[in-house]
């Protein structure tokens, strides 16, 4: 994998553009494991932000090493049990022109990867849905989405860790603890985690 370009963000940060979300999370995991001296290493949809960089590091040289090395093995694998009774299940079935059962079959067949977090602590953007299955956001976001709601927006899948307003199309809900400060790793779906959904009655 290669770096597209490195954009300066002030004196102590660099935004590194890469091909896509999987490349971004791969670079972020690699940089963390390699101990690249930055306060924050934040993957995005096609970038990695290195914030609070130690002035001594030659980032372009370090990134050259990334492009030549084997990618870091995928992170933890997590299976998330879901009750598929979401309010937008029928709408997604209509968009895909399939039956509701087929939406569930497709959603549980995808091997997702947590690409990056945002919006709320522990809210992960899960990559892996084929682009032809992308769905639009709701025209009118809901004022309240229940915690554990599993939804789609564009080609992203996400699970709401806490109750919040939201415009994702909701397929179902899970009781998996997504954000728990008592754990060493508070986010269940931290970037790099492999995620599969399993249908539960």
């Amino acid at each position: 994998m290669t770096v597209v370009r490195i954009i300066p963000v002030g004196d102590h940060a660099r935004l590194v553009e890469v091909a896509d979300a999987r490349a971004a999370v791969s670079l972020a995991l690699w940089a963390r494991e390699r101990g690249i001296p930055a306060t924050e290493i934040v993957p995005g949809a096609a970038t990695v932000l290195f914030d609070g960089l130690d002035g001594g590091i030659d980032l372009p040289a370090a990134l050259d090493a990334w492009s030549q090395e084997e990618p870091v093995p995928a992170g933890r694998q997590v299976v998330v049990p879901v009750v598929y009774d979401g309010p937008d299940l029928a709408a997604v079935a209509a968009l895909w022109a399939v039956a509701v059962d087929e939406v569930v079959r497709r959603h549980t067949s995808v091997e997702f990867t947590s690409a990056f977090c945002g919006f709320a602590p522990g809210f992960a953007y899960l990559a892996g849905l084929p682009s032809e299955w992308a769905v639009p956001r709701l025209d009118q976001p809901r004022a309240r989405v229940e915690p554990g709601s599993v939804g789609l927006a564009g080609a992203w899948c996400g699970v709401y860790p806490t109750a919040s307003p939201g415009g994702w199309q909701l397929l179902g809900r899970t009781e998996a603890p997504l954000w728990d400060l008592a754990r060493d790793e508070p986010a269940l779906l931290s970037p790099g985690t492999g995620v599969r959904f399993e249908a539960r009655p």
Partner: protein
Amino acid sequence: MTLEVLDAGTLTTIQDLGRFGHAHLGVPRAGALDAPAAALANRLVGNGRAAAVLETTLSGLTLRTHQARTIAVTGATCEVTVDGRAVAHSEPVSVRAGATVELGRASIGVRTYLAVGGGIAVPPVLGSRSTDTLAWVGPPRVRDGVRLPVGTCEGSPAPLDVGVRRPAGAHLRIAPGPRSDWISDQAWRDLDHAEFTVAADSNRVGLRLHGPPLDRARTGELASEGIVLGAVQLPPSGQLVVFLHDHPVTGGYPVIGLLEPDDLAICAQLRPGERVELRGQSSSGRGAGPSAGSSTA
């Protein structure tokens, strides 16, 4: 030792230097918005720089100390009284056990800091005692009637210390950001010396600025990417947002500018309705950065 909060005002939070290393999990950094003012308060009472202080927002704060301690009030100007007697702002004040400390409404600025010898000693969350108001990570906001634990005094008060003096008629210096090529060269020139009004919905997440519309060179949405403190974002509404300490960690609107880090403390104290001038720093570096492999110094 505890501080009993009798009246917490509109929004009082506990803040320290902030929470680092968790942005990739969606956790904002938080921390005192006017960091130099918080640092001064800590120095005045003999605390280390990482001690937690109280940050108020426009309205006042009333507390009772349950033990004799040194306190200091810095940041936004307000009346400070101890047992009804006026005491100095930005100086250490010895307070007896059982005294009532009252901070009035801010007359200049927005955020007043109160440090107490030993620091506010609530349990840290992910390495910090700061309250983040975007996702509410950290201690809950300070409410009426709460008793806040205070740590053990370690240093001695420093009576002779001064904060950073800011020139009147403050302006905000903006350098080109990672997506400055989303506005035209003309828009970048227009930004320099342009006057903006601080919007009422400004908060710890961002300072929102109403001003002249900026000519866009590109439209649409950007793939979500990491955001730094002081990023100046241009959302579709055209209302610039200067991201402050509780900013979201990723966002999908272009960051056209970067605030000079020293000016963050000015943002912390700008009041809704106040006018502020932007100063564009050199536009020569605008647009795409150097490609991988070349020097990025």
